């Protein structure tokens, strides 16, 4: 009889423990769901703020691009040059030094000569 009562007592503890676990699980799942939902809304709000910020930055960028274009325009630069008496003018032809650009054929010839004559010779030529 006593043994049977003990068995019944242990059974009740097990049932209670299982029920408690189930309750805790359901409670945690519920909390998790709510937390998750909360996160979704929070992230949504954050995305919205970022979108608004990106939009306003794009608007500002377009406005600044137009301003920059205006400031870089030849007419504006010319006016500022006159306004501040800077006297900036393009260089005249006689004030320009034009450098000769070696052609691929000249390069090949130069390399061949260097191979044949040695580095010392080439340095002397240059």
């Amino acid at each position, binding site marked *: 009889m006593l043994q049977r009562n003990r068995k019944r007592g242990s059974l009740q503890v097990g049932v209670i423990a299982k029920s408690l676990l189930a309750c805790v699980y359901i409670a945690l799942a519920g909390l998790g769901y709510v937390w998750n939902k909360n996160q*979704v*809304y929070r*992230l*949504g*709000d954050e*995305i*919205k703020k970022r979108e608004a910020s990106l939009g306003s930055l*794009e*608007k*500002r960028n*377009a*406005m600044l*691009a*137009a*301003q*920059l*274009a*205006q400031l*870089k*325009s*030849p*007419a504006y630069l*010319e006016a500022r040059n006159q306004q501040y008496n800077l006297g900036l003018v*393009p*260089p*005249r*032809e*006689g*004030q320009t*030094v*034009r450098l000769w650009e070696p052609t691929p054929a000249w390069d090949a010839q130069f390399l061949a000569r260097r191979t044949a004559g040695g580095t010392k010779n080439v340095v002397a030529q240059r």
Partner: protein
Amino acid sequence: MSFSSQHRRALIVATVMGLGFSALSFRLVQLQVLDSQELRAEVRKIHGQVVHRQGRRGAILDVNGNLLANSQSVNIVTADPSLTQTQATESARKLAPLLQMDEADLVARLTREGRYVRLKQRVDGETAQQIRALKLKGVFFEDQYARSYPAGTLASHVVGFVDGQHRGVQGIEAVMENYLQGRSGYEIVERDRKGREIRALRNEAIGPRDGYNVTLTVDQVIQHIAEVELDKAMAQFRPHGAMIIVSRPKTGEILAMSSRPTFDLNAPGDAVPDARRNRCISDVAEPGSTFKVAIIAAALNDGKVTLNERFDCENGAFVYAGRALHDSHPYGVLSVDEILYRSSNIGSAKVALRMGSAEVHRYIRAFGFGRRTGIALPGEVAGIAHPLARWTKLSITRIPMGHEIAVTPLQMLMAMNTVANGGRLMRPLVVKSVTDQQGASVLEYGPQLVAQVISPRASILTTSSLRKVVTSEGTAPRAAVKNYDVAGKTGTAQKIENGQYVRRYYSSFIGYLPASDPEISILVTLDDPSMGGYYGGTVAGPVFRAVAEKVAQYLGIAPQIVESEPGNVS
């Protein structure tokens, strides 16, 4: 208490509860299943909203990526009069200086019937911010794109402008509309009690696509040089109109295209329609002596004449088909070379007579006269080149001097480019590429050969003659550019009014440099100069020189004759 009494009570409680739950279940099914569609629609109507998002229109850039047109977001200030009526006077007093509007007008708007009124469009971000800071009840803001042209009047006829609906109506804005126009997107959103969007509940979102950017072959520095010189010419010679086109003969690229009168792209409505017309492609006129280049080049190409062959220029008066043809100066016997650089009408008529009408007509068509060049700009006209059947007996002597034919300035420049470019006629290019917002290429436009009109040899021979035009022996010594080898031709055509030639002129000069290997070609035309002369060499020649000097320097075109300036080299 008997068992049956307990049982009965339990039954009643169970029945009541069962009925209650059944009623609740039924209501649940009714809301969730039976009336679900209607209720969802109602909720969407109250909390949901379809928000349309407009794609930004693409930008127009010059060849170096400088901005010529872009779209900026501006604000529309609106109001709900049902909310503003009570404080209309106070609100109007605060808003008037910021919106630069009349206070009384604002009061009238703020007290109007209805729930929506627009107070002002195109309000910039800074002003909108100031108005927001006032926290006025019933005043709201809407976003709107506005087209902005940072360079104002620069290249106005090429760039064009948009209408109130942001659609291109002229120039590149109109021609490239399909590429420039962005695509709208939409979002289905839900809002909370305060009207704020609940981002997490956004059902559907198709983002807008911004329009593509269009890059032109036009260089804003060269365009500026052309426009400054054009303005000087307008002040000096007081013509009715004026045009300058700068191009690359080898590729057909248009580096600058400008005409006067002009208009500000930011306020196209303020200009008269005449100022908005791109005269370079829409105006036709008899070209005058510049047309001789085509005839002499054709005759040299066919081997009908040589440069040294001599023609009697009849001392300035040549009677053909019963009508006299005159030269501006009487000439005796001239070589073909001299006929071109001295611009003899009689000489060129005799060269054309040697060729015959059919050949002359064939070359006129081959050089592209009488048909559109195909430039990517709206409003181009074909000009007038009569079919051979409509030629009179006199036509063969009048067409070589640029009469009985009407051309656009662009057609004439492309014909001259043909001579400069070894006989190859190119299609004029004004759009270089189309790119997306990330800079990836969508379309590229390259040089397009239309036809090989004359041989390279004929081109060299014609150029050798055109070089002399800018010498003291030619008609335009004032078009000579210091240190550069220039070839060109003058034109002075009498204008026709009511079917009669009048003493008003269409003066032009078309030239290219360096003559041996042309990098640029420039057309200058003044329509009816009223001061300082009217000959092409006198009025258009100096303008050509001023533009050519600056453009050659800007592009770094190596001079053919180098003069050192001691002490100035650094």
